[in-house]
């Protein structure tokens, strides 16, 4: 007969209590979904009977603190008016205020004020159909700048530090052209200045547009149009950028780029780039450390599904979900193909593990776009949040098991295994962009999601009793945002970046859930390979960490 000791009995009881607690946390909505006072943005994508592919793809959202008052502000990318049919000259009525991008400043009481005009962000360009946004302090002046991608010309808005922005695109030389989608700032050569990566989707135009489908017209798959290369701009440090797409090797490959995310997956000190491609092999650009990149997706195991098939990759996040201190990839895609988790095995290799992690079973029916890996319940494990909605606005007529409008997916991370969580809303929308951040500075991560033809959704974290720590990096030798730093807190890794998701830019602060720990040990490896350690840091606070000088 087995003899149960008091200690063992206590352990069993504790385990049972823990399980019950976990069950409770799953059954209760983590978020309160509510509008934010003062935010009245509507993403106007203007769907037409012509099924112009561009109209089903916007739009992005960014969380940034543009005036350094400690409060997150919100920038929404609007799309534009598309006529049915579209006739020359092709413009999108962006001077009409209904189609402006919108910028909302957060007030101290948690409400927001529309400051689009006074910030100088009303002019999005008549011939630009809006897509996404990236945020980074490219001139290291302490104020975050905005880069807006378009079908058309992209725009770089320099933050003047006085509440206004100036369009510096022409001088900076970053207008690109064609159909840009997601973008992100990174310092790929560790020279302390943020460079810029832009994904492009297709070689598409209104003249080349066509519909697909038999009997019922719908949007064409990307294979109907030529693939196109992505763009890498190198920051010269004088307010201008150089297009190094060809010399860096980035332009050597053409794909159907949508999402982009950065991480140093092989810990060689240089930031690598992952591009989520739609029905093309996924691209993993390994940074060779000499200004060039090698595309290693197929050989590393991060290009195809576990059946060796192409993904319809859309959104992507590049963070460590299983706390093995190696950044993993989560790529969202179309239904009947689960979202793919490429687990970083070390030694530069990945293995698809969506089945083993349970995420596959939660995602097979859905179309995922914006995605984040954030610790929403502060238990020390990063959870997944995906905004969803199909590409086809008539998908139900093709397959009754699918829906154009979908609620988001919240997948709670239970020590590396994902379980369905309650996001607080089952209202189906046509989700696209998503940005993650702590909107009200309560130590609990929130979500802002965009929906086609609709108002954004705000998932406001209800909070709880677990501890947390949020870090703001301030580079001195490195880029001021600290992008590219590898930050370890109590056995968890975050790669410092605002990029990831789809079309969107996240709160650049690094948030860690600490569970029951009220202290934290912090280790930062700056891109310059400077190591910085802090021990016994009190939980539940925002800490600004400046890169040490002179090491």
């Amino acid at each position, binding site marked *: 007969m087995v003899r149960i000791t008091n200690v063992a009995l206590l352990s069993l009881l504790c385990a049972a209590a823990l399980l019950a607690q976990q069950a409770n946390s799953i059954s209760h909505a983590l978020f309160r979904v509510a509008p934010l006072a003062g935010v009245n943005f509507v993403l106007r994508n203007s769907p037409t009977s012509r099924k112009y592919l561009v109209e089903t793809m916007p739009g992005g959202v960014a969380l940034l603190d543009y005036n350094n008052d400690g409060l997150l502000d919100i920038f929404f990318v609007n799309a534009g008016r598309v006529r049915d049919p579209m006739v020359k000259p092709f413009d999108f009525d962006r001077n009409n205020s209904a189609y402006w991008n919108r910028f909302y400043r957060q007030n101290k009481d948690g409400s927001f004020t529309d400051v689009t005009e006074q910030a100088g962000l009303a002019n999005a360009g008549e011939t630009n159909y809006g897509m996404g946004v990236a945020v980074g302090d490219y001139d290291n002046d302490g104020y975050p700048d905005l880069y807006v991608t378009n079908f058309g010309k992209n725009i770089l808005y320099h933050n003047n530090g006085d509440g206004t922005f100036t369009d510096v695109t022409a001088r900076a030389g970053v207008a690109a052209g064609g159909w840009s989608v997601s973008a992100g700032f990174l310092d790929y050569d560790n020279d302390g200045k943020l460079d810029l990566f832009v994904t492009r989707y297709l070689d598409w135009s209104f003249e080349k547009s066509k519909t697909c489908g038999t009997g019922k017209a719908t949007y064409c798959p990307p294979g109907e149009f030529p693939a196109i290369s992505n763009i890498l701009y190198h920051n010269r440090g004088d307010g201008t950028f150089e297009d190094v797409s060809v010399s860096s090797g980035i332009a050597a490959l053409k794909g159907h780029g949508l999402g982009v995310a950065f991480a140093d997956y092989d810990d060689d000190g240089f930031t690598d780039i992952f591009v989520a491609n739609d029905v093309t092999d996924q691209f993993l650009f390994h940074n060779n450390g000499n200004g060039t990149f090698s595309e290693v997706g197929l050989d590393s195991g991060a290009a195809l599904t576990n059946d060796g098939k192409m993904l*319809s990759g859309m959104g992507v996040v590049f963070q460590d979900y299983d706390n093995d201190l190696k950044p993993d990839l989560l790529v969202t895609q179309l*239904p009947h193909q*689960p979202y793919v988790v490429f687990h970083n095995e070390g030694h530069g*290799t990945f293995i698809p593990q969506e*089945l083993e992690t349970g995420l596959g*079973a939660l995602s097979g*029916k859905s179309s995922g776009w914006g995605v984040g890996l954030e610790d929403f319940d502060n238990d020390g494990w990063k959870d997944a949040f995906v905004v969803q909605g199909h*590409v086809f606005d008539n998908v139900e007529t*093709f397959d009754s098991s699918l829906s154009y409008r979908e609620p988001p997916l919240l997948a709670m991370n239970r020590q590396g295994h994902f379980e369905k969580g309650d996001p607080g809303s089952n209202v189906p929308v046509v989700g696209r962009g998503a940005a993650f951040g702590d909107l009200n500075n309560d130590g609990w991560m929130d979500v802002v999601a965009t929906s086609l033809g609709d108002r954004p959704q705000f998932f406001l974290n209800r909070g709880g009793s677990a501890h947390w720590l949020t870090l703001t990096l301030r580079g001195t030798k490195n880029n001021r945002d600290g992008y590219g730093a590898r930050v370890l807190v109590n056995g968890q890794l975050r790669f410092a970046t605002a990029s990831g998701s789809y079309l969107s830019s996240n709160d650049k602060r690094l948030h860690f859930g600490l569970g029951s720990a009220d202290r934290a040990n912090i280790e930062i490896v700056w891109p310059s390979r400077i190591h910085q350690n802090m021990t016994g840091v009190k939980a539940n606070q925002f800490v600004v960490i400046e890169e040490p000088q002179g090491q």
Partner: protein
Amino acid sequence: MIWYVLWFCLSPQTQSAEPLVPQEALVLLQAGADAERLRDLETAISDFRKASELAPTSGIAFLRLGNAYMEKRDYSAAIPALRKAAELSPGSLPVHQLLGFALLARGYAAEAIPHLEAAHEYGALGIAQLQNNRPAEALDNLQRALEKNPDDPDLLYYLSRAGSALSSQSLERLLARLPDSARGHQALGQNYYSLKMYDEAKQEYAKAISLRPDLPGLRLELGQVYAASSQWDKAEAQFQEEAALQPGNAEAAYRLGDALLQQGKMKEAAAELKRSDDLRPDMTETLYLLGKATAISEPALAEKTLSRVIELERDTILAGQAYFALAGIHRKLGKTAEAGKDMREFRRIQSLGDARSPRRP
């Protein structure tokens, strides 16, 4: 080929019934036959027409005239001549054969049937019966014709059409006479499933199961509807019940294994897939999934099963996928050289055809 040129002579009983033909008409018939041999069909037709006018009660003259039109592929013109020949020589097999062909060629399947029956032309008869919505008889006659010409593409094509038509007809009868039977609902469920109307399909299968809970196959099919709509937990439940109902059914075990795998239940999936492989060894789909299910927990077994897939499938898409899965296992085991070799094979097979086409939507 069903349609072939018929060189014929009249059968004895027809000859005996044939009235005397004037000498002038016989000369024309001979001239027409000579012209026909020289492929001068216009002259032949002219000669045969004149002969039929000189001998209006002669079946031979009309038969030769109809045959010449048939050779010219002018079936519309052949039909009146052949009808007259049949009237004058009702016992002539060649007349029935030609008239049956001509009528069938012009779409008069119902009228063609008695003539083709009389001529014992089973292939054309089967086609006519199929077109006349008599698939069961068509199936029999086409099979008889295929015994003589087993590789005739027309016969094979129409046989497959007859099979489909018979299936549809049986289904229609089932639904018309027994709409509320378990089989009726099952048939409707299959129809909805093929149309991707999954909700309706689920309802029909649920009705079928409520009527005949003991009927094998219903849960297997319902499970596949759930699987097609990525509802793997519900698919698993159905496959579990089917596997309990039919423990010796390898497909039920395979599909249950797949449903478990899709939910990340790797251990249970592996057990079920092993059971399926025991029941029906060397099914490559089963072995492939078993390789996936055991890739992490039992890499040696995974290597073995995936290698077996490659051995059995050689250069198919599934073999390519097996190489790809093997590459992942070898990477994980640190066997980078072997992983590289696997990927080269994967690429080679991909280059043979587009093995990676994704599904949309």
